[in-house]
């Protein structure tokens, strides 16, 4: 299942990957979740493993979500550090 991954701020700098299209691979009887994406990205390389350490926020289609959120093909998933606007 193809999805788009985006990163921002420190997560973008550490992963060195602002955006990436990946194929989330899950068993046929399992729903793909944010947790699967995280696990797969961690395996990609050391930068991704570092980028996804600590308290990272996640969004699906531009809405905050958590690691159990279920994904559909074409979803946009974003990873970023706690926000500091205001």
């Amino acid at each position, binding site marked *: 299942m193809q999805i788009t991954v*985006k990163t*921002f*701020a*420190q997560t973008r700098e550490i992963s060195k990957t602002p955006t990436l299209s990946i194929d989330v691979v899950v068993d046929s009887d399992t729903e793909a979740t944010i947790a699967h994406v995280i696990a797969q990205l961690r395996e990609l390389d050391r930068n991704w493993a570092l980028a996804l350490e600590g308290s990272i926020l996640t*969004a699906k289609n*531009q*809405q*905050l979500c958590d690691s159990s959120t279920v994904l559909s093909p074409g979803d946009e998933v*974003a990873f*970023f*550090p*706690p*926000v*500091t*606007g*205001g």
Partner: protein
Amino acid sequence: MFAYIQEQDFDQGELYAQLQSQASAKTIGNTGAIVTFTGLVRDFNNAGDIDGIELEHYPGMTEKALSTLIDKAIERFSLTSAGAVHRVGRIYNNEQIVWVGCAAAHRQAAFDGACFLMDMLKQSVPLWKKEFKGDNSTWVEAKGSDDAAALKWMSER
């Protein structure tokens, strides 16, 4: 209601006028109080002097998250209108960063709405701040006190 994400500076008097005119159009004569908050760049911080800040954001989501937040504030505090503007990109010392405004029948709701918007904005709108001085820049870490301020609103209802 309005929610703008923009690079250019804003005129707080114009934003106030826009908020007041929206509040009157909707419920003429029912607005007794308008509270505005403006955030400015301070030229020092715990790490020493800075030239300014640089704001990164998540285009698309930032606008949506800010709009959603304003809708929540309007509903929760029965506001007659509310609006917000957040700048992105490079902003120098003493310049304006963010503005929120809330109109309501009574003063407590207008004050609460503006506090709520600022506390929750620091929690749910995808904006990230770097402080810069010359060619050096440092990410601003999220503050525990900001988490606590937002949690207060979540636990109250």
